[in-house]
Structures are given as structure tokens and as C-alpha cells.
């Protein structure tokens, strides 16, 4: 009993519509005709990604990945691959397209993803320190404490080219060396887990799936800079991540991997959690430190930088969760290994929380330099419902909207900055033709206005002004003077705001004005919202030629503004209409027009 080989046929909607059903039947038939029914199972899968190259067929256990397979190819796959064991090379996915240098691992490989940060996520039980240890956990700490001097650790991190994954991309090795250069005495290591961008959950998932990797990295960083105390600043809305971190800290203490004289060395280090109340501004490092000190979470001017004068006035390094999760791998595999992955200026990988109008939303990790097209179409499986891609937003409310012409741009810190966005912490929201650009800009401004701490005028007043202009535009009351003012205010905010929140808050406005001016123009000139999102600009009417008088719309209308006799064309009283759109949804005859 038991099959020897398995043919997996992608059953995702894209592949299904691409003759996937016929292919599945053809493979089953070929297996039967060749008498392999007891040896080979043909299985339909969920979406395997790579939808543009569908239908996809995968053979297990060999892990062969065939693309663009036609029903006619079924016989060849069965006769050549299954019976004779010869790979059908013309159907293989072109391996040379992989961004990963195959030489790094010497593995044939079609996946677009490369997991350094997420190496243990979804593999180990996060509540069991032994499983982390079995997967080389705390081996990097071992190496640092017993084989390396603090300066060697910093050198290795510098060599790797790792840059801060919280968004700004400051070189991690440099940050550590600034703190290390300060005179010996009390220093602190802080992990920024105050993830707050709408739609971003990279850090939460990392902490929930692999808490020890962050604890190990903090301990290594403490050793490198001469700190004996670390804090994880995490938002209270992440109860599971907090629980798993608490378990992990207790286990590490029990094993002597935290506390006095770690592993019998003369290095001591401990970690405590500090819970944030969920203010977005506390992700900014000076505000975060203020919050840990028990003060109101507000930023302060830099310099002095925290590496010189941070927590309670002492030298402090603040690293983001994802940055830290890279550290153990960098020490074990070497900075050089890490520096081979990615682009000239941005090394390693980036984790993205891929959400929005995408088929396969998910937590992904790709080498720097991967294009948006690869992320959205190969990994993400394309736009939901086969609609047209309109824009992608990286960096959450601090980022910009990226239009379709940049789908093939390799993304790294520099390339994103050049097109008016930022890498950010890793939220990646995909928008389609049903999303209205001014409306999205309004959504983000609404968020940053809400989250602005109010300390500096450019952010407090500028953000509110921008929001008011956007509101007017979405209501059809906008003017070109508003646009000019928005540009001027945006500029002032990015130059004069005290912290990153205000400096970047206008990015959604600036980028959308740059790439989607036509949509703003439509809202201003034609009072039209092509996506049908801006309620005030919509008008519902009934096409009397199509209406059969079924009364479905009249029954569903919450304000009773639709009238008409049974089996007679109905009409909408637009003075009473609240534009809820229910009549549009309910009409089976497409008789309700929305314009």
C-alpha cells in the first residue's frame, strides 16, 4: 500500500481556467493507461503561485516543477518522467530567472522566496526552546561569546551590509559601533516591536513563530555594545506574541541563556518586556524610549542619537524585530554569505505582509531586488477576481503609491526612495481598479492625523490641512488651488516635522499627485470617481429599458427613494438617495446605473 509518486496539478482559479481541468483528466487517464494507478496518485492542489505560467504541475517526491503544461503533455510526463525517470526539460521553470545566486546554496530551486528571518516560522514549536536549539539556536551566541570579541561581532554585522528593517534602513553595524564607542558603563539594547502600520504583521508573526531568534540576537547585540539589559517594546494588542515571548524569556533564563554569566562566561544579560498602549508614534525611536521611561510617548529632536544618549540618558541601540532575527544567521553563516544576497546597496531579504486585492495574501520573505511583479503575480497569485492592478503601497501610511510602470523595478531601499515611496517595515498593500486613489490617500492621512502626537506644528496642522483638502476633493468640492496648497504643505511637512511620522505622512499624497493626477483631475473637473468609491460623486439611476419592475431594488432601499409599479420600470429620487449602493448590488438585470 502507498503510492510511489505523486503528480500535483494546480487547482487555483487561474490554472483551472487555463485548461487545468482538462490537464488533470489527461494526467489521470495517462496514469491509468500506463497501469500506474496503484503507484501514482494524481492530486489537485490549492494555488501554487506562478499563475502567469500556469497550469503548474509538480511531481513528488522529486520536487520537479513544470510550468505551462498542456493536456497534450500529460502522456510525455507519465512516460518520460514517471516511467523512465527522465525530467521533461522543456517544461521546467527557467531556473536562471531566480534572483538567488544558486551558488550560495547549490540547490536547484524555483521558489521566489528565501527565508532567513522566517527560517523557523512554521517549522518549530515556538513554546519549546529545545526545538529552537536543535535548529542551530543559540549557536551564534555561543560563537560570539567564546570565539569572538565584541568588535569582531560588530565587524561581521557591518560586513553583512544589514540595514535597519524598521523602515529607514540605517546600517546596523554602524549603529552598534556608535554605541560600542561610548565609554563603558550602563548601556541598553532595545527591540522595537511596536508594529503599527495598517496591514502589517511581519514582526508579530516572527515573534509568535520564533521568539528565541530575537532574544538570542538581543543578547548578541548586548555583548557587542557592552549592554547588560535589554527591553522588548511590544504593543499590548499582540497578546499571543507577548505570551510566547514571556515563555521564551523564562525558558532562556532557566537554561542560563539569559541572566548572570551566560553559559559560564563572564557576560551577563537579561531581557524584560515593556508593553506599549498602541500609539503609532511610539514606533519612532525617541518616542519609544520616552514611553519605556514612563513618559508620554513623544519624539524629541536628534541629535543626540539614542546610541549616544538614549534610555535614561544612557547609550542605547534600538533595532527592529526583523533586523534582529537576521543576526544569528549572519554570525553563523558569515557576513560575506549574507552580503551576496540582494542588491548592491541593500543586502539580505525583506519580509512583507502581502495584503489587499491579491489572491494569495501572506507573509513572504524575498531577496532584496525582487520586483513587485514577482511578488504580486508569482508569489501572490495575481489580483483577486482577475481585475487590473492599479497601485501598490509599501511602507504603510509613511510610504507612497507605486503605479504599474514600476512593476518591474527591483525593489530595495534606494529604488523605492527614488520613486517616492519607502521600504518601510514591510506592509505591502495591493490596490486594483476598484480602489480610488484620492480616497486611499485620505485613508492614510486620516490615520496619521489620528496618530500624530501633536508636538510639532508641521505634522499637527499640516496633516489636518491635507486631510481637509482630500476630503473636499473626494466630495467633489476640490479645486486646483487645493492641489497646489497640498503640494506646498507636503513639502513643508517632510522638511520641518520633528520625527519620521510627520516627515513621511505626506508621502501617500505626494506620490499619488505625482502618478495619479488624472484621478484627482476627474474628481475636480468632472466630479467623477472612476472607482465608484467617493459617495458624493456617485449618481444612481435606473435604465428603464432594462428594468423589468421586479421591485427588488425598492424593497432593499433603506430610505424608500425608489418608486414604481410592479412589472413597470422604477425610478430613483436622487434628492433622497443616500448612495448606499444596495439597489446596484441587488439588481439582477444590470438596470441600475452607477456613474
Amino acid at each position, binding site marked *: 500500500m502507498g503510492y510511489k509518486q505523486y503528480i500535483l496539478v494546480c487547482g487555483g482559479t487561474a490554472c483551472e481556467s487555463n485548461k487545468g481541468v482538462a490537464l488533470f483528466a489527461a494526467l489521470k487517464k495517462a496514469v491509468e493507461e500506463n497501469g500506474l494507478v496503484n503507484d501514482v496518485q494524481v492530486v489537485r*492542489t490549492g494555488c501554487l503561485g506562478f499563475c502567469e505560467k500556469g497550469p503548474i504541475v509538480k511531481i513528488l517526491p522529486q520536487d520537479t516543477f513544470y510550468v505551462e503544461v498542456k493536456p497534450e503533455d500529460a502522456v510525455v510526463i507519465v512516460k518520460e518522467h514517471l516511467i523512465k525517470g527522465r525530467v521533461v526539460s522543456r517544461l521546467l521553470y527557467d531556473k536562471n530567472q531566480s534572483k538567488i545566486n544558486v551558488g550560495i546554496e547549490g540547490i536547484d530551486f524555483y521558489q521566489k522566496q*528565501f527565508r532567513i528571518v522566517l*527560517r523557523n516560522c512554521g517549522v518549530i514549536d515556538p513554546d519549546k526552546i529545545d526545538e529552537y536549539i536543535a*535548529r542551530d539556536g543559540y549557536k551564534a551566541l555561543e560563537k560570539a561569546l567564546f570565539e569572538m570579541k565584541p568588535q569582531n561581532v560588530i565587524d561581521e554585522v557591518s560586513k553583512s551590509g544589514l540595514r535597519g528593517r524598521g523602515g529607514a534602513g540605517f546600517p546596523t553595524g554602524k549603529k552598534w559601533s556608535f554605541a560600542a564607542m561610548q565609554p563603558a558603563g550602563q548601556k541598553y539594547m532595545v527591540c522595537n516591536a511596536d508594529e503599527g502600520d495598517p496591514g502589517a504583521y511581519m514582526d508579530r508573526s516572527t515573534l509568535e513563530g520564533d521568539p528565541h531568534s530575537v532574544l538570542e540576537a538581543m543578547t548578541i547585540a548586548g555583548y557587542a555594545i557592552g549592554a547588560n539589559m535589554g527591553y522588548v517594546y511590544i504593543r499590548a494588542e499582540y497578546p499571543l506574541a507577548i505570551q510566547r515571548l514571556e515563555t521564551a524569556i523564562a525558558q532562556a533564563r532557566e*537554561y542560563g541563556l539569559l541572566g548572570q554569566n551566560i553559559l559560564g562566561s563572564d557576560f551577563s544579560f537579561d531581557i524584560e518586556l515593556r508593553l506599549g498602549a498602541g500609539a503609532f508614534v511610539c514606533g519612532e525611536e525617541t518616542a519609544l524610549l520616552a514611553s519605556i521611561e514612563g513618559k508620554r510617548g513623544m519624539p524629541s529632536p536628534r541629535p543626540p542619537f539614542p546610541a549616544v544618549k538614549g534610555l535614561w540618558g544612557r547609550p542605547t541601540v534600538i533595532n527592529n524585530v526583523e533586523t534582529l532575527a537576521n543576526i544569528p544567521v549572519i554570525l553563523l553563516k558569515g557576513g560575506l554569505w549574507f552580503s551576496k544576497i540582494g542588491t548592491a546597496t541593500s543586502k539580505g531579504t525583506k519580509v512583507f505582509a502581502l495584503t489587499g486585492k491579491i489572491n494569495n495574501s501572506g507573509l513572504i520573505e524575498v531577496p532584496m531586488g525582487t520586483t513587485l511583479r514577482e511578488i504580486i503575480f508569482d508569489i501572490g497569485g495575481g489580483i483577486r477576481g482577475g481585475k487590473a492592478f492599479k497601485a501598490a503601497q509599501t511602507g504603510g501610511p509613511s510610504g507612497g503609491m507605486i503605479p504599474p510602470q514600476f512593476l518591474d523595478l527591483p525593489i530595495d531601499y534606494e529604488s523605492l526612495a527614488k520613486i517616492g515611496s519607502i521600504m518601510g517595515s514591510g506592509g505591502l498593500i495591493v490596490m486594483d481598479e476598484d480602489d480610488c486613489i484620492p480616497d486611499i490617500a485620505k485613508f492614510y492621512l486620516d490615520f496619521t492625523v489620528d496618530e500624530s502626537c501633536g508636538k510639532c506644528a508641521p505634522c499637527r496642522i499640516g496633516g489636518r490641512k491635507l486631510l481637509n483638502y482630500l476630503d473636499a476633493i473626494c466630495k467633489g468640492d476640490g479645486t486646483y488651488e487645493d492641489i497646489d496648497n497640498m503640494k506646498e504643505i507636503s513639502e513643508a511637512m517632510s522638511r520641518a516635522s520633528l520625527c519620521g511620522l510627520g516627515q513621511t505622512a505626506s508621502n501617500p499624497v505626494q506620490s499619488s499627485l505625482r502618478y495619479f493626477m488624472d484621478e484627482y483631475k476627474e474628481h475636480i473637473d468632472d466630479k467623477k470617481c472612476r472607482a465608484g468609491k467617493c459617495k458624493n460623486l456617485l449618481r444612481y439611476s435606473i435604465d428603464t429599458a432594462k428594468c423589468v419592475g421586479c421591485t427588488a431594488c425598492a424593497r432593499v432601499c433603506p430610505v424608500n427613494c425608489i418608486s414604481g409599479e410592479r412589472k413597470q420600470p422604477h425610478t430613483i429620487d436622487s434628492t433622497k438617495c443616500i448612495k448606499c449602493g444596495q439597489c446596484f448590488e441587488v439588481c439582477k438585470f444590470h438596470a441600475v446605473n452607477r456613474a
Partner: protein
Amino acid sequence: MAKLTLADLRKLRDEKQKSMDKRDPSNKDAQIIVGMGTCGIAAGAKETFNAIIEELDAKGISHVLVRQTGCMGLCHSEPTVEVIVPQMPVVIYGNVTAETGRKIVDDHIINKKLIDNHICDKPAMDIVR
């Protein structure tokens, strides 16, 4: 467990590595691993987890270890479950409701057949092993 010395840690790692490689903790030769991040739990992973354990008990199967792990990254298909059975490919299933969880026990574990329409691709190769 007392505080580890360097030698203790290395010994522990060797032991655990062996048991993980053999995939044979406590004399069980198969594993069902349920993704239990916030995302998975929100999508019903706890119900799936319980259903799998109940079904294993009901069928009197004792050679399967049921474990939890963090997010596998396949948010579009939560809850996700990985199944490791000797002489069969390692498979990740998506959209595993309690019902599909029971099916995993009946079809995959008992009948050694993969289940239609639920297989997801492994997102990336493993850089540790």
C-alpha cells in the same frame, strides 16, 4: 533543568537535532503540525487541532505526534497544517477546517493518500537544514 554550560548546550543541541532529524520524538513516526499564529487561530486552527486529536483517538492511532508551530506565511489558506509521514512527501495543507483535519487522519495518515484541493506549496527551501 539547571543552567547550561557551553558543553551542556552543545550536547543538548546534538541530541535534539538527532531526534528532530529522525522525526521520531517519543516513538512516534509521523507528525501533524498545526500553524498556530494569531492568523491561524483566528481562522479556526484551535478547532482543527482539537478535531485532529479527537479523530486520532477515535481511530486508535498512537504513532502520530500532533504539534503546534507559528505562522507558515500562507495567510490566504489558514488554517494550515503540515503532515509528515514516512515514505510520503512532506505536505502542507491549507484551509484545513475541523472536517478537513479529520480527513487528514483518515485519508493521509490511514490510507496514505494525499487530499485533493488543499495542498499548498512549501514557500521556500530551508536554510538551516
